[in-house]
């Protein structure tokens, strides 16, 4: 039977609870957002005693379903002040699911100033002393815990940035190669740091495993689903070959690649940092062009990037990071960006927030555009927590305020990702209306605006964008609850058997009879729960807006501005 593990850091106690009936059908984002909405006071300080940090594997995590090993983490975000769900790969979701942990809820704050670790087994959670690991980077934490507890131990950890409660701190999750994947967005590492938890170690020895109500039906659906993933050109060929970074050249061509802190839509140095060049560099140096962030991923968009000497630098080297440090900061040296990515993993900061922040820091004159070595040096200052490091670690909006910059690309104080909303208008609607602050994954209109997946809606026109973003945000909220990697959306949008097979797997797993409409309704209800939390936290429709500069600064080469009216944006919520 699945259980809820609850940890009270105020009393330093742990308990195991039965899953309330109302949570039984929920997983992943549906569950973290439901628990946060039910148990967290919306007006609380995100770093205070009343916030809670919730982890929940998806509905299909721990099963044989392809790409189902994603873990959701939720809380009130210290970066945005909204509700937050951020999901990651790594080994933790499958371990949780096999151990029967439906959710882990961490609440309260310890009274003393010590650091703690949380050790999870199938029998419960134990709070242990962790002062010896305080101040250590994430790679060192993983190494130390593996040495002490064994190679198979799962690890969820925060770096120095999380310890210092910086608003762009992330939570790192060990992947199958003892490297790192991240719950990146929204500063959740600071919430974990506020609760003085340096790491969570997971020993899944003797875990009962996941029971499947109808194994035969499950097997069939899983086969159909996996076939769809492998048959679609994006998930079957493009992503494994070039990784997500294949997008640099496409967005450059389309004029939607935010460059020089969102002043241009194309980057002269695009060829040096693009997915094609990266692929060739990885192959030449003997790295791995394809790699999965969790066992059971058959798409394998990740990769292992080595330096010129053939030494490991980074994996999970994503388009977002490369765009952000590359085009947005005008750095055309892939090795510098890879090294920055490694440092960000180690000190534990979100690579998107960091990259958008550095664009603003460059505009503020803290360092020149194009200064890759300067970025690496300043990431070191963030890890050490120097005075400047603390300003930078507060994220894009924080640096903009500190230096009086007006071109600050954020929505609800979260940095805007890798697609210019003026020249790819659908994604602007997602940035504006997402319950998470600016977040491309919440409703990835790039698929249809740019990539001709799921049809085509002209990125430069307003027509159809609100509806596109709405449909995608609803579907994404549901997919984020299954434990599926969001890239299953590419085949799901194009191959008719894909989504029914996904629903069949859920039905076979739990012995239920969900229909497509039920899944859509689940997506809608998640968005509404999240929005209600934000409203009670003080947000209004006036917060569903892009920064003003997008209205009056045309972005070349198409020289377009953001031209949606308030009413047009607000119509998003008509469902």
């Amino acid at each position, binding site marked *: 039977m699945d259980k809820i593990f609850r940890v009270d850091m105020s009393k330093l106690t742990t308990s195991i609870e039965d899953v309330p009936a109302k949570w039984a059908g929920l997983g992943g984002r549906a569950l973290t957002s439901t628990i946060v909405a039910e148990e967290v006071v919306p007006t609380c300080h995100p770093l205070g005693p009343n916030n809670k940090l919730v982890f929940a594997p998806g509905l299909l995590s721990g099963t044989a379903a392809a790409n189902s090993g994603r873990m959701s983490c939720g809380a009130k975000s210290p970066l945005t002040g909204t509700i937050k769900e951020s999901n990651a790969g790594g080994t933790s979701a499958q371990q949780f699911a096999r151990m029967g942990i439906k959710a882990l809820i961490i609440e309260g704050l310890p009274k003393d100033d010590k650091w703690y670790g949380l050790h999870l087994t199938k029998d419960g959670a134990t709070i242990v002393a962790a002062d010896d690991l305080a101040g250590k980077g994430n790679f060192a934490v993983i190494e130390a815990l593996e040495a002490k507890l064994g190679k198979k131990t799962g690890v969820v950890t925060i770096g120095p940035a999380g310890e210092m409660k910086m608003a762009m701190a992330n939570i790192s999750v060990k992947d199958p190669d003892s490297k790192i994947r991240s719950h990146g967005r929204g500063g959740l590492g600071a919430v974990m740091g506020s609760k003085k938890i340096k790491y969570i170690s997971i020993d899944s020895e003797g875990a009962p495993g996941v029971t499947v109500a109808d194994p035969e039906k499950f097997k069939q659906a899983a086969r159909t689903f996996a076939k769809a993933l492998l048959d679609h*050109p*994006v998930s079957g060929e*493009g992503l494994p070959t*070039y990784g997500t970074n294949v997008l640099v050249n*496409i967005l450059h061509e*389309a004029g939607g690649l935010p460059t020089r802190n969102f002043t241009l839509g194309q980057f002269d140095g695009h060829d040096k940092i693009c997915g094609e060049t990266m692929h060739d560099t990885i192959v030449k140096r003997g790295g791995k062009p394809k790699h999965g962030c969790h066992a059971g991923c058959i798409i394998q968009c990740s990769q292992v990037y080595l330096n010129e000497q053939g030494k490991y630098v980074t994996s999970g080297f994503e388009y977002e990071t490369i765009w952000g440090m590359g085009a947005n900061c005008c750095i055309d040296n892939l090795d510098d960006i890879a090294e920055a990515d490694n440092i960000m993993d180690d000190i534990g900061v979100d690579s998107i927030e960091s990259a958008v922040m550095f664009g603003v820091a460059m505009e503020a004159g803290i360092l020149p555009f194009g200064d890759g070595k300067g970025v690496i040096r300043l990431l070191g200052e963030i890890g050490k927590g120097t005075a400047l490091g603390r300003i930078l670690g507060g994220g894009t909006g924080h640096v903009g305020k500190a230096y009086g910059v007006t071109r600050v690309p954020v929505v609800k104080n979260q940095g805007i990702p890798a697609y210019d909303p003026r020249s790819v208008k659908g994604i602007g609607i997602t940035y504006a209306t997402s319950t998470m602050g600016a977040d491309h994954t919440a409703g990835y209109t790039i698929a249809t605006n*740019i990539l*001709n997946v799921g049809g085509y809606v002209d*990125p430069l026109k307003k027509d159809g964008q609100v509806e596109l973003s709405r449909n995608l945000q609803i579907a994404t909220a549901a997919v984020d609850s299954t434990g599926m990697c969001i890239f299953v959306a*590419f085949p799901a949008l194009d191959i008719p058997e894909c989504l029914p097979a996904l629903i069949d797997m859920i039905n076979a797993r739990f012995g239920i009879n969900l229909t497509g409409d039920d899944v859509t309704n689940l997506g809608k209800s998640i968005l509404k729960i999240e929005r209600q939390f934000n409203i009670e936290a003080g947000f209004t429709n006036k917060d569903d807006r892009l920064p003003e500069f997008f209205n009056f600064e045309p972005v070349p080469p198409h020289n377009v501005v953001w031209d949606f009216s308030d009413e047009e944006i607000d119509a998003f919520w008509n469902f």
Partner: protein
Amino acid sequence: MQITVKLFATFRVGRFKIEQRSYPAQSTARAVLEDVGVTEEELGILMVNGRHGNLDQPLCEGDTVSLFPLVGGG
């Protein structure tokens, strides 16, 4: 007329990255596709001067045609 042809991802294998190529006046994007040996089924995204185009669209002197297989990311 002179057209700049750009190829991406797997289309580059055994071909080229970027070239100036000549076509008779009034040629369409389809002529470029035939010229470089990419089939319609393989084509994922076609852009003419940074805007999504269609195969029957007539080209003008100096246009840039970019061809991508179906790829994606995030």
